């Protein structure tokens, strides 16, 4: 081990006469562009179409009964394909949140700071990300009951951004049973049926 930890390891380069004393290129611009024509998958398509009707769809885990939103077609608690979609209300509680002062690329309409939050919908087992507004940022708290504020009907598209933000309902806060655990556990994941 040489004693100088930062001693250079690459030997110096010898240049031909025509390059000596010439200002050397140090970096090169290599523009990169790849286009993808992505497909959403079956379950996400159903979720996005429902969103256009101001409806929120989750999927039920075939072994634990947990409800996941948005649906991705396979639940991690079973490792199996989802067979049942579930309609969820647009009400729930704030499970965790973050007052953010960093802009989101492509969302310069958002005034800083904004509150991004994981909202557990009534009947769902996991949080669903969205913005909380209609309440001062420093009053947002774990357990806050909220309801979706949808964009005007003419602006609705196949996107979860149809929910403009979640606003407090004024109902009593949900008591957070444990600060460590998130969502609502269903049946224990270990018990599973192998698909016939």
């Amino acid at each position, binding site marked *: 081990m040489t004693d100088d930890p930062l001693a250079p*390891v*690459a030997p110096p380069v010898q240049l031909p006469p025509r390059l000596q004393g010439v200002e050397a290129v140090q970096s090169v611009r290599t523009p990169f562009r790849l286009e993808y024509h992505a497909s959403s998958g079956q379950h*996400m398509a159903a979720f996005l179409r429902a969103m256009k009707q101001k409806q929120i769809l989750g999927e039920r885990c075939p072994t634990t009964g947990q409800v996941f939103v948005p649906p991705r077609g396979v639940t991690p608690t079973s490792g199996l394909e989802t067979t049942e979609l579930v309609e969820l209300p647009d009400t729930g509680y704030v499970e965790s*949140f973050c007052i*953010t002062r960093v802009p989101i*690329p492509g969302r310069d309409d958002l005034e800083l700071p904004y509150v991004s939050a994981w909202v557990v919908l009534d009947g769902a087992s996991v949080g669903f990300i969205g913005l909380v507004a209609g309440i001062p940022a420093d009053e947002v708290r774990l357990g806050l009951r909220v309801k979706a504020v949808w964009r005007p009907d003419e602006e609705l598209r196949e996107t979860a951004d149809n929910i403009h933000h979640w606003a407090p309902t004024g109902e009593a806060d949900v008591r957070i049973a444990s*600060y*460590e655990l998130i969502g609502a556990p269903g049946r224990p994941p270990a018990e599973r049926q192998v698909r016939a």
Partner: protein
Amino acid sequence: MAKERCAVIGVGQTKYQSTRGDVSIAGLVREAALRALADAALEWDDIDAIVIGKAPDFFEGVMMPEIVLGEALGGVGKPVLRVHTAGSVGGSTAIVASTLVESGIHARVLALGFEKQSESNAMWALSLPQAFQTSINAGAGGYFAPIIRRYMAMSAAPELVGCLVAFKDRQHALANPYAHLHQPDLTFDQVVESPMLWDPIRYSETCPSSDGACAVVLASEAAAAVAPNPVAWIDATAMRSEANNFGGRNMVNPAASSMCVADLYAKAGITEPRREIDVVEMYVPFSWYEPMWLESLGFAEKGEGWRLVEDGTTRLGGALPVNTSGGVLSSNPIGASGMVRFAEAALQVRGMAGEHQVDGATRALGHAYGGGAQYFAMWIVSAAA
């Protein structure tokens, strides 16, 4: 057949910087590899196999760069593997390399983690526009801030514990010539007054974006016997993965972390980590994760980890020094950071950590995590065979 013993006989690192404008990508990885080979007094041809670890290839815009880099690391005619397990990749790369020695297949393996983030930028590469996803993209800070908020509520920890960790690691970094952030004039107040980015995470409590590479040479018992410098024996390794979003998930102390460390300690025969482990190189990209991981790794009771930060236990010179290298908070080339933790742990028990050496350290823990705190890779190294 019983597992072969495996030791770290060489460590090499590059100077971590926001932009290493003086080297090509091959130059960056060769800098770390050549230093590791020099430490082990070996040449390229003495290496039997290479395992390269790096996080998303979008950082450099080169698909599977190991195809181009294999030859730059003396890989022609040899096995070359490329591991990618998100943030924990540096750790899992070292573990995969150790299995190649422990299984008796190879005698000397070069494991290297790298990232050259300045070729693009971390924000772009980590939050690529995705079809069908909501545009509310919390990014890493936005993802971990709510978890940190839950730990603060659960532990009732004093509000400035995160700043204490950030200040400690930046001071440690001054004793590490490779560290990216060298801020000799930084004051604690400056850390506290730093702007809040994702409440409760301040700018000063987040890690930088760095270019960098880190390499280790792993060797069998026979090869380690002829190594010129002290070696670090790998007592145990462990990896676990879990989903990042399901009902009942413990977000503050993920089951993948607690199960991984339980497996690790069982294999290493560790029952009292606080007493049996001398120094920890822990993956802390956001400062509050130090107290949280201290609890998950069994060094403190639930809700009590912050006390070890507050009372100076985790400082160089404390009873359980953490990240004396400056840690991820001082240098973060994502693909290398896990490997840097594993390598710095090895340097400690080899007595080769220089200015940030913990005197008399004989057993160290290297720890890495990735994804939504869902991928974990850890190893225990010790001075004794």
